[in-house]
Each structure stands twice: as C-alpha cells, then as structure tokens.
C-alpha cells in the first residue's frame, strides 16, 4: 500500500455509458460532472463547442458525480438525465439541464420532460421510484475509485487530465492524444 500517483479510469467505457461521437474514435474524453456545479456549467459550454468541432474524431462520455451535500439539486437532476436516457433522450436532457442550471426543482425537471416531448408520466414514475438512483451511485463510486477529486474531472483515453479545460487548451490536449 504505497503512494499512487497515476489516476486511471477503472471503469472502461461501454454501452452503458452516455456517448457522443464515434465509438471507434481514437480519443475518448470522459467527464465526471454534477448538474448543479457552476464549473460544470462552464465545462458544458466547452463540451458543446468541442462536440461540434471534433465530433468525427473524439468520443465524448458523461458520467454522474453529484456532490449531494454541496449541491442539493444535483442528485435528482442526474436521475432526470438518466430517466430521459431511458427514453432515448439523454443528451437532449443533459444539455437542457445545464442550460437551465438555475431551475432544477422537481417541478422544473418534470416540465423539461414535457418540453422535450418525453412520456411525462413515465418520467415522473421513474423519478418517484428512484429507478436510476443506483446507476447514479455506481458512476459516483467508480469515479471516486478512479481518482475523481472535483467536478468536473476529465479523463483522456483513460488517464486523468489535470490541465486547464478552457476550449483551446482542452482541444490541444485532445489533438495531442490523437497524434499518439
């Protein structure tokens, strides 16, 4: 039991993940994030920009890391994204939540399901039953074991990326990874 310095993703990217971009991309960017975290909202704008620019070359993955004590709305918002995912609309809800980060009360979430054209009754049932709680907790724990130490935390091709994540810097890091 000695010191560990390299933080590697201990949960490989699989079909259970929410992915954007080609599965056979040479570079995979995994983000652990929290829907109520203001830094994650900034990161979301960066992700949207990069998703637009690099969508042929990079596979983007999002996993939940709700800091529940710090952000009381983060857990249910994560479950809402998972409930939308069960109806095939993960990224739509994901983007919508970050674009409405200041309104994450339960009635807001139900309203977003309606706005996005989801089956609202089914969505409401999923949240009421806590159907996606376990999934969110699995993401949270495998993130912790992989060395997630804040939100957002990024992994490029399975190794934690500790650099700046403004769009130009992160883009350069992804392009470096493409060349390797």
């Amino acid at each position, binding site marked *: *039991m000695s010191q*560990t310095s390299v933080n590697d993703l201990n949960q490989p990217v699989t079909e259970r993940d929410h992915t954007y971009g080609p599965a056979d991309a040479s570079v995979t960017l995994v983000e652990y994030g929290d829907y109520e975290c203001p830094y994650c909202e900034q990161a979301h704008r960066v992700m949207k920009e990069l998703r637009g620019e690099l969508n042929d070359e990079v596979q983007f993955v999002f996993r939940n890391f709700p*800091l529940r*004590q710090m952000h009381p709305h983060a857990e249910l918002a994560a479950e809402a994204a998972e409930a939308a995912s069960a109806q095939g609309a993960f990224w739509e809800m994901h983007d919508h939540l970050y674009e409405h980060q200041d309104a994450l009360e339960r009635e807001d979430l139900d309203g977003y399901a309606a706005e996005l054209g989801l089956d609202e009754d089914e969505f409401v049932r999923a949240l009421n039953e806590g159907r996606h709680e376990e999934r969110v907790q699995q993401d949270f724990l495998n993130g*912790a074991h*992989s060395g997630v*130490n*804040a939100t957002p935390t990024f992994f490029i091709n399975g190794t934690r990326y500790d650099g700046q994540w403004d769009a130009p810097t992160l883009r350069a890091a992804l392009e470096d990874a493409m060349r390797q």
Partner: protein
Amino acid sequence: MTPDAAEGEIDYTHPELEAEQTPLQPGTEAPDFTLPTTPDQAVTLSNFRGQPVILAFYPADWSPVCGDQMGLYNEFLSEFRDYNAQLFGLSVDGVWSHDAFEADRNLHFPLLADFEPKGEVARAYGVYRDEPGTAERALFVIDAEGVVQWSYVSPVGVNPGVDGILDALEELPSEENQ
C-alpha cells in the same frame, strides 16, 4: 516564500521545495493526541481504538483546494461509515475558524485544531512544513489497533481525491471493517 512576498502570497504550488520530514509509514503506531474540535469539546485519538480512523491533514481552512478536498470527503461519509471508519480533518487553524468553515461548507465531520502548540500533531506525524507554518496535505488510515496502515502526502496544490482512502480501508482486515 521570498522575504518581500506580501502576506497571502504563500506559494502553495511548489510543494517539492523542501521535504524536511518523513510521514509516518505503515506499521508505525499512530501517536496519540488530544485536540479541540469546538470551543468546548476535544477529541482523543485513542478513544477511537476498535475502529479505523482517517486523519486528513490540510494546510488551511478557506484556502483554495482545501475546501474542495474537505467538501469531497464530506460526500463520502456514508462510504467511510460502511467501514466503521471515523474521519477527522486537521489543520493549524483554531476552533473558531474551523467552526465557521464547517458551517460555510456544510461539513458533517469534525475538524481538529492543531493550534497550540502549533502543528504539534502534524510534527508527530511527520507532515509539518516549517516555511508556511502549516501541515502538508497528508492522509493517514489507522487501523482498529491504532497502527498506521496507509499514508500519503499529496502535492500541496493537488486535491488527493478519495480513492487512496477507499482502497486503504478496503485492504484492512475484514473484522475491522464490520
């Protein structure tokens, strides 16, 4: 810190400057201590024999990163409880600072004030830094018998995360995990 550096400009980004001490290594008996946690309460380490203890030394309340680190641990209290483990945060700040910091960050675990004599416990664990006059960002997992089973010193500017603690708790003999 250069002599003309203004107060508040302590360099937290170059932890490799001087490692004057060696942190206590696995197999060492954890030095006992009693430290105040609130203006009228104190914690004695040896009272926690029989369960694992996590000691998280950090440089200062309110400084960048620390808040994140303690905030992160605050999210894992139920996982630590699964191992019957007790977490303490320790810095050289006094109880009133800890009190305000805990309230501000909504922390649900005790912060101990290694305040008088300043840094005495950090020194005993080999994780005191003379120049800024604070503890390192150092983690210890102590088993139910009071023996250090894992220690880790992180670069002061880097939040060490929670994976090392969880792995160390996982590796404790199972009768201690309960």
